[in-house]
């Protein structure tokens, strides 16, 4: 793990960060979030294309999932290859609660997150002790367990047909999620709030603890950090955001399918992180947009989606060894340095 690091922890820790400065940074994050939400909310007024709004909704679902994975991969150095299980869990959990109990949507949302917390705590408690490749594969094994349970427990989940019959979406506080525009606005709001919360986690002292664990877990443990607890905490937190992504997806397709919990979702999540770059907070978001565009173009052109995606992955993993945002940041820094040289 030499090249893939979310902004080198040493550098940031070395700088004395005054309270005022970190407050200002936080206000800036909130401002950017509000501005981003405003832009997204304006979109339906400017473009009437339903396809564009659908695209943004899918970006919200996968963006939350991929960014939460980056909290594990980029910030903590835990390469989870089973993060998709929480995406599937969110979709199935929410869909089943809505179909079976008829709870109000916000309550069902919270209940799904509660279920995710419980499941993630159990799985995390078993997994987070393991090192790199073991962690990757044991999380993958749990993903396959959840996938196989969805397939075999067909009386509850509908088996390989998925959760059919639509998810009821009763109106709450004036919001009707059966309405496409309402769904769009809610998805954007969930995305922006989710990103803002994850940004706060990443920039908090806890976030810097995570970077320290990634860089040197034994040193972190020597200075008195409970590494196991910190890893478990971020594992559960990341699962919650992935689950939220799954909830958006189940609302969007009004159902849930076994593919949502299949291992390829986790693989795509990892690749999204690689594609966008894990050294910046928004890298995974850029990766999500790129992968979804690639996905939509390729599936229209050929049925052999795997070959094309595989070659693109190889190009990035062996050829470039970096994500796009990593290049952008490097290019920007180089330009800034050269400007500084010239003015000197």
């Amino acid at each position, binding site marked *: 793990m030499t090249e893939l690091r979310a902004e080198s922890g040493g550098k940031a820790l070395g700088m004395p960060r005054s309270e005022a400065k970190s407050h200002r940074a936080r206000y800036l994050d909130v401002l950017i979030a509000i501005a981003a939400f405003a832009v997204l909310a304006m979109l339906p007024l400017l473009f009437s294309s339903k396809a564009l709004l659908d695209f943004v909704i899918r970006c919200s679902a996968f963006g939350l999932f991929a960014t939460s994975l980056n909290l594990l991969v980029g910030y903590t150095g835990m390469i989870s290859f089973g993060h998709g299980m929480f995406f599937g869990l969110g979709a199935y959990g929410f869909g089943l609660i809505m179909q079976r109990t008829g709870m109000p949507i916000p309550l069902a949302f919270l209940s799904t997150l509660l279920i995710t917390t419980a499941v993630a705590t159990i799985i995390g408690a078993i997994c987070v002790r393991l090192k790199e490749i073991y962690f990757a594969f044991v999380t993958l094994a749990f993903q396959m367990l959840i996938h196989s349970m969805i397939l075999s427990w067909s009386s509850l989940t509908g088996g390989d047909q998925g959760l059919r019959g639509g998810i009821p979406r009763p109106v709450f506080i004036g919001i009707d999620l059966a309405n496409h525009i309402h769904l769009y606005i809610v998805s954007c709001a969930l995305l922006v709030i989710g990103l803002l919360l994850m940004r706060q986690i990443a920039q908090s002292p806890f976030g810097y603890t995570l970077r320290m664990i990634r860089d040197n877990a034994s040193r972190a443990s020597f200075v008195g950090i409970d590494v196991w607890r910190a890893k478990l905490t971020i594992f559960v937190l990341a699962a919650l955001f992935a689950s939220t992504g799954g909830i958006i997806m189940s609302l969007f397709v009004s159902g849930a399918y076994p593919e949502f919990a299949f291992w390829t979702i986790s693989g795509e999540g990892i690749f999204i992180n690689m594609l966008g770059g894990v050294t910046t907070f928004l890298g995974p978001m850029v990766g999500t947009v790129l992968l979804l565009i690639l996905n939509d173009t390729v599936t229209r052109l050929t049925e052999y989606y795997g070959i094309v995606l595989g070659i693109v992955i*190889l190009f990035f993993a062996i050829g470039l060894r970096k994500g796009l945002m990593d290049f952008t940041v490097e290019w920007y820094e180089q330009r800034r340095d050269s400007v500084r040289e010239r003015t000197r």
Partner: protein
Amino acid sequence: MDLDALTGCLGSAACLVTQTTSGLIIGMLLFLVAVGLTLIFGVLKVVNFSHGAFYMFGAYFAMTAYQLTGSFALAMLCGAAGTAILGLIFERVFMSRVYGGDVLMQLLVCYAFVLIFDDIVRMVWGPEFRSMGMPTAFQVPPLFVAGGVVPPYYLLLISVALLVAVILGLGLARTKLGKVIRAAAHNPGMVSALGINTGLIYGSVFALGGMLAGLAGALAAPVRSLTPGMGFSVLIESFIVTVVGGMGSILGALIGALLIGLIRSFGSLGFPLFTEGLMYLFMVIVLVARPTGLFGKEVA
């Protein structure tokens, strides 16, 4: 849950024999795949996430060779040799570029090849289920042991896998090549300083691992249906085997594979809906009680 079926089976010799044989078959096939995985990990320190694809290719190669020549022996040979060559190319051209601690890159390269290989199989052999059919030499009435059914092909499969286990175990422990491989696993820098081509060692270990997975696929072809993506569940199961048995241990892979095979075959009687779950549960118990696996030395 159907505990009556399980206890009923445990009481009858015939059922016991049938279930044990089918457990041994699952276990032996898993062993062949898992031992390659564990060898590659032991020497190259990478987990070959695309290992299941070699199993799949072995099966498809064998099917095609059998349909062309009608010779079962040639089919097995094709399955094993084809995947060995594939493994060598795959390691030298692609995997060798991502060695060193970066697990994320290794996973991504393997992930890319899982996608590519599955699509290649879909292109060449079609997306539908295929079957090779039992070779004519083995189309004989099954043996009956204590009232239980034992097809003769199963005996061949079990003996081939056991033979591989013995050859591998002795070969690594006794021969010069085995010593070089063990030395390369321990300290590749020193081995290469002694004038041994470690790249060649790495390539051949990968080829050997690929070959064993291909052999498993070829042996499985007459008794399993062939489909693109068939390798993935085998990969996960053989990974569970190596976790249970301990990464890098051949004996561990054998014992782990047999345990998982028996759990699957008896579990399918008692807990038809939770058979896979039992396997994971077993892995979790082993991981919690002995994080290094039953025969592993390295701390996981």
